[in-house]
C-alpha cells in the first residue's frame, strides 16, 4: 500500500524527523498566512498568487514520496531567488527610472503634494476655535466642525455642505463648544479613531475651505496652486504662473525652465547608463580610479595573505611554547569592530596631533599626498585583515598531511623548497576561493576608504575624484553626495560595477581549476 501524499510518504519514520518536519511546514504555513493578509489588504493579487504557488510547491515537494533531489534543492533555490536574484532584478529595473529625491512617488502624489503645500490662509479670514464632533454615532457619523469666532463668540457648525450658524451651543471660557444639541462631541480617543476621515474633511466656503489645524483650531484656507488636467499643468491662482508637466523628467516646469520642487518617478530608458558613459567628470577620472581600485583590492589581498601566512607558518611549528596565547592575541583585533578601529586609525594619522607622527617625530600630512594616503589605507587594511588570513592559513596548514613534507625532506629538499613546491600549492587549492572572495569584497570595501581618507587627497581642480577613491566611494559621492539621493543613477553605476567584479571573479575561478589538477 503506497500513499500518494503524507508526512511519512517519503520514508521519514523517526519521531524527531517527523516533529521537525511538522514544525518547519507549520512555520511555512504560518508565514504564508501572515504574508497573505497585507497582500489581500492592498489588493496585490499577483503577489498573493506567487505566495500561494510557492507555498503549494513547498508542501507538495515535502509531502510527496518522489522528487527527492528537489527536497534538497528547494531551500537553497528559494534563498538564492529572494536574496540574490530579486535584488539584482530590482536594481536593474531601478536603473531605468529617475527614482530618487523629488522623484519617489506617482504623478498623482506629486499633484496632491503641490496643491496641499500651497494651501494658504485666506487673507483677513477668521481663525476659529474648533471642537470636532459627529452628526450621529462617534464611530460612524458624519464629521462636523463646531466653530466659534474668538472675537465675537458667534458659534457655527461646519459640515461637508458648508457653514451655518449654531444657536444652542454651550461654550467654555476659552470659547470652545462643549455641548451642542444633536451633535456628539468627540473625545481625543474618538478623534484619533476617525483621523483618516478628519484629514479628508473640510467645510467648503465661498473663498476656499475650512480645515482643522490640530484639535482646537480651524482656519479658512485655499490652495494657491491647482492642477488643471486640460493643459496638464499647475496654475497659480494669484500670479497666473503655469508649470507644465514634463513626463520625460517627471517635473512641472515653467517657461523659464524652473521646476516645482515636487516631481514624480518616470521611466528614463537608458539615460542613466548613457550618463555614466558620457559624463565628462566620470570619463576623466574613471580609468585612474579603476586602476587604484584594482591595485587596492589586489594589494590588500596580497599583503594580508602574505603576512597572515607568514605568521601562520611561524606559529605552526609543533611544540612551540605559548602557541595558543600567540594565536589568541593575533586573532584579538579581528574581534574588534572594524568601523571603530578605522576611525581610531584615521585619528592616529592626524598631521599635528596624531600618534604616528608624534611617535616617529614625523611631519607627514598622511592624507595630503596620494602615495602616503594609499600607504596609510593599506596599512590599516593590513592590520584589520591579516588576522583573518592567519586564521584560514592555520586551518589549511593543519589539514595538509605532515608526511608529505617529511617525505620531501627525506628526499633532500630544503625546507623552503618543500614549502614552495608542496605546501604552498596545496594551500592555494584550499584558499584560492577565499582569496577571490576577499578580492571581490575589497573591491567594494566602502568603509575602508570612506572612514579613513574619504578619498583624499583631492586635486584642487577636481573636488569629486580623490586619489584614494575606489569606484564605490566615488559613485556614492556622485549619486548621493550631491543633489540628494539619485537611486536610478546609482543603480546604473552598480550594474557597471557588478559587470566588472563578475568578469574578474569568473576569470579567476576558471584559473583556479588549473590549481585543482595538482590534487
Amino acid at each position, binding site marked *: 500500500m503506497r500513499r500518494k501524499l503524507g*508526512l511519512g510518504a517519503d520514508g521519514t519514520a523517526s519521531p524527531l524527523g*517527523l*516533529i521537525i518536519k*511538522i514544525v518547519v511546514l*507549520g512555520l511555512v504555513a*504560518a508565514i504564508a498566512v501572515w504574508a497573505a493578509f497585507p497582500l489581500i489588504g492592498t489588493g496585490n493579487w499577483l503577489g498573493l498568487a506567487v505566495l500561494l504557488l510557492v507555498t503549494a510547491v513547498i508542501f507538495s515537494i515535502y509531502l510527496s514520496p518522489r522528487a527527492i533531489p528537489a527536497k534538497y534543492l528547494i531551500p537553497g533555490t528559494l534563498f538564492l531567488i529572494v536574496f540574490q536574484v530579486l535584488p539584482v532584478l530590482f536594481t536593474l529595473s531601478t536603473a531605468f527610472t529617475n527614482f530618487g*529625491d*523629488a522623484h*519617489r*512617488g506617482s504623478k498623482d502624489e506629486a499633484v*496632491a*503634494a503641490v496643491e*496641499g*503645500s*500651497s494651501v*494658504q*490662509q485666506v487673507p483677513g479670514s477668521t*481663525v476659529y476655535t474648533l471642537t470636532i464632533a459627529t452628526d450621529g454615532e462617534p464611530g460612524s457619523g458624519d464629521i462636523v466642525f463646531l466653530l466659534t469666532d474668538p472675537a465675537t463668540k458667534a458659534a457655527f457648525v461646519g459640515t461637508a455642505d458648508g457653514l451655518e450658524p449654531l444657536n444652542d451651543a454651550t461654550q467654555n471660557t476659552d470659547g470652545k463648544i462643549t455641548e451642542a444639541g444633536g451633535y456628539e462631541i468627540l473625545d*481625543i*480617543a474618538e*478623534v*484619533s479613531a476617525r*483621523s483618516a476621515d*478628519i*484629514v479628508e474633511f473640510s467645510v467648503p466656503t465661498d473663498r476656499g475651505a475650512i480645515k*482643522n*489645524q*490640530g*484639535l*482646537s*483650531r480651524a482656519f479658512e*484656507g485655499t490652495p494657491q496652486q491647482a492642477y488643471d488636467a486640460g493643459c496638464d499643468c499647475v496654475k497659480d491662482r494669484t500670479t497666473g504662473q503655469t508649470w507644465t508637466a514634463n513626463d520625460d523628467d517627471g517635473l512641472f516646469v515653467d517657461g523659464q525652465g524652473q*521646476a516645482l*520642487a*515636487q*516631481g514624480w518617478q518616470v521611466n528614463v530608458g537608458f539615460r542613466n547608463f548613457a550618463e555614466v558613459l558620457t559624463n565628462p*567628470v566620470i570619463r576623466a577620472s574613471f580609468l585612474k580610479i579603476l586602476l587604484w581600485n584594482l591595485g587596492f583590492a589586489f594589494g590588500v589581498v596580497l599583503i594580508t595573505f602574505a603576512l597572515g601566512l607568514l605568521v601562520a607558518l611561524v606559529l605552526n611549528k609543533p611544540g612551540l611554547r605559548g602557541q595558543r596565547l600567540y594565536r589568541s592575541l593575533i586573532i584579538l583585533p579581528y574581534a574588534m569592530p572594524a568601523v571603530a578601529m578605522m576611525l581610531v586609525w584615521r*585619528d592616529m594619522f*592626524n*598631521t*599635528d*596631533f*596624531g600618534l604616528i607622527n608624534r611617535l616617529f617625530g614625523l611631519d607627514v*600630512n598622511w592624507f*595630503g599626498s596620494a602615495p602616503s594616503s594609499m600607504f596609510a589605507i593599506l596599512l590599516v587594511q593590513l592590520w584589520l585583515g591579516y588576522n583573518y588570513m592567519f586564521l584560514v592559513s592555520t586551518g589549511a596548514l593543519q589539514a595538509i598531511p605532515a608526511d608529505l613534507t617529511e617525505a620531501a625532506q627525506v628526499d633532500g629538499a630544503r625546507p623552503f623548497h618543500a614549502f614552495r613546491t608542496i605546501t604552498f600549492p596545496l594551500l592555494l587549492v584550499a584558499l584560492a576561493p577565499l582569496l577571490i572572495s576577499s578580492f571581490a569584497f575589497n573591491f567594494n570595501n566602502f568603509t575602508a576608504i570612506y572612514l579613513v*581618507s*574619504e578619498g*583624499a*587627497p*583631492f586635486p*584642487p*581642480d*577636481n*573636488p*569629486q575624484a580623490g586619489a584614494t577613491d575606489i569606484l564605490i566611494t566615488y559613485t556614492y559621492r556622485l549619486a548621493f*553626495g*550631491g*543633489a*540628494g*539621493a539619485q537611486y536610478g543613477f546609482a543603480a546604473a553605476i552598480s550594474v557597471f560595477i557588478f559587470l566588472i567584479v563578475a568578469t574578474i571573479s569568473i576569470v579567476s575561478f576558471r584559473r583556479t581549476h588549473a590549481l585543482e589538477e595538482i590534487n
Partner: protein
Amino acid sequence: MHRARALVAITALLLAGCQAGAGAGATEKPSLLIWTGGGPGGEATQALGAIFARENGVDVNVQIIPEDLQTQFVTASQAGRAPDVVMGAHDWIGNLVQNATIDPLQMTDDTKAGYQDLAIKAVTFNGQVYGMPYTMNNIVLFRNTALVPDAPRSMEELVQKGTQLKSSGKAQEILALPVGPTGDPYHINPLFTSGGGYIFGTRDTGDFDPADLGVAKPGATAAYAKIRALGEGGAGVLKRSITTDNILSLFSGGKAPFMISGPWQLPQLQQTGVKYDISPVPPFEGGQPARPFITVDAAYVASRGDNKALAQEFVTNFWSRPDTGTALYTATSSVPALKEALATVRAGDPLVGKVSDAGVEFGQIMPSIPAMAVVWDPLGKAEAAVVGGADPASTISAAASAIQAQIK
C-alpha cells in the same frame, strides 16, 4: 496513533497562539509617534513627550533615530510607515518638501510674533511655514580669558594675539577652527562672508535663488585668498589637522586661546574649568561683517502620519509653549527660538544671551533649498585645498563649476 495525537497537540498550540495575538489591542489609547535625533535633545524630547501624553490622556512614543534621521524619515514616509512628527534642522525642509513628506503649518499671527524673526524666516520655504522652531544656533568666538582678557575686534588682531602667545610658548595653536581633510564650509562661513563671499543670493521674496551662486563670483575667490593667507602656507592659523573632534580638547586644554564653535560646547566646557568668554566671530579689517550661519531645529508634521490632527496639536499648540523651549534649553544649552523662553534663559545664563546677540546681529540663515546639498562637498574640498596652499582662483572656480553642474 501517538503520531496523530502529537499533530493535534501542535495544532492546538498554534491555534492558541493565534488567538492570544488577536485578543490584544481592541481598545487602545490614541498614540503619537515622534522621531528625533540622538543626544541630549532626544532625551529632552522624550521627557516632553511624556508631559504631552499626561496632559492629553494619549500615548506618546518618542523614538530616537541616532543616524541619518532625515533619510530614514523620507524612506519610511515613502513606505507608508512614517511617524506623526519628526524633529530636524531647518535645512532639511527643501528635501522634505520635494519628497512630499511634510505639511505646511498654519501659524496664527500671535504664534509667529512670539518667535524671533530669523527663526520664522528659517522655517519658511516657498512662502509657507513648515516647522515649529525650538532652537536657533550659530557659531561664535570662544576665548580663553586667562590668556586673552579682551575680545579681538578683527581677525588680524586675533592672529596677532594668538601668534604672540604661541611664540612665547603659552599656546601651541592660534585658533581651534575645524577644517579637517575635506573642509568645513559651515565653520568657515564667517571668514568667507567677511572676505566678500556668499553662497546663494536671495530673490525679492526672501527665498534663496539657486541660479545666483555666490561661489562662482569674484568675491568668493577674494575671500579664499584671505583664507589662504591664514592657512598652512601662511600664518598657520587654519590647519587641516584641526577637526570637529579635537577643537574642544585644544581649547579646554589651554593649547589654543581661541575656538570658533557653537553653544553646544557649553555643557562640556563648563565641566573643564577653563575660564572663557564669548564674542561674535570678528571680521577681517576693512572687510564685510563676519556672518555665521543660523541653523534652526524645528518640529514638523509628517504628511503621511496616521494621526495628523494629534500631530498638529502637538506641534502647533504644545511645542510652541515657552516651558517647552526652556526645557529644551536646559538639556542642550541651545538658544531658544521663542522670545519668551530666550528672555527667561538669558536672565540665568548670559553666555547663551551672547550667542543669541551675535546671531541676531550678524547671522545669516543657512540656505534650505535642495541645491544647498550640492554645495557642501565641493566647497569643503576647495576650502581644504586652499588652506593647504592651493591657488584660490583655480580651486574655487573648479568647485563652482562642479556645483553648477549638479544644480538641476
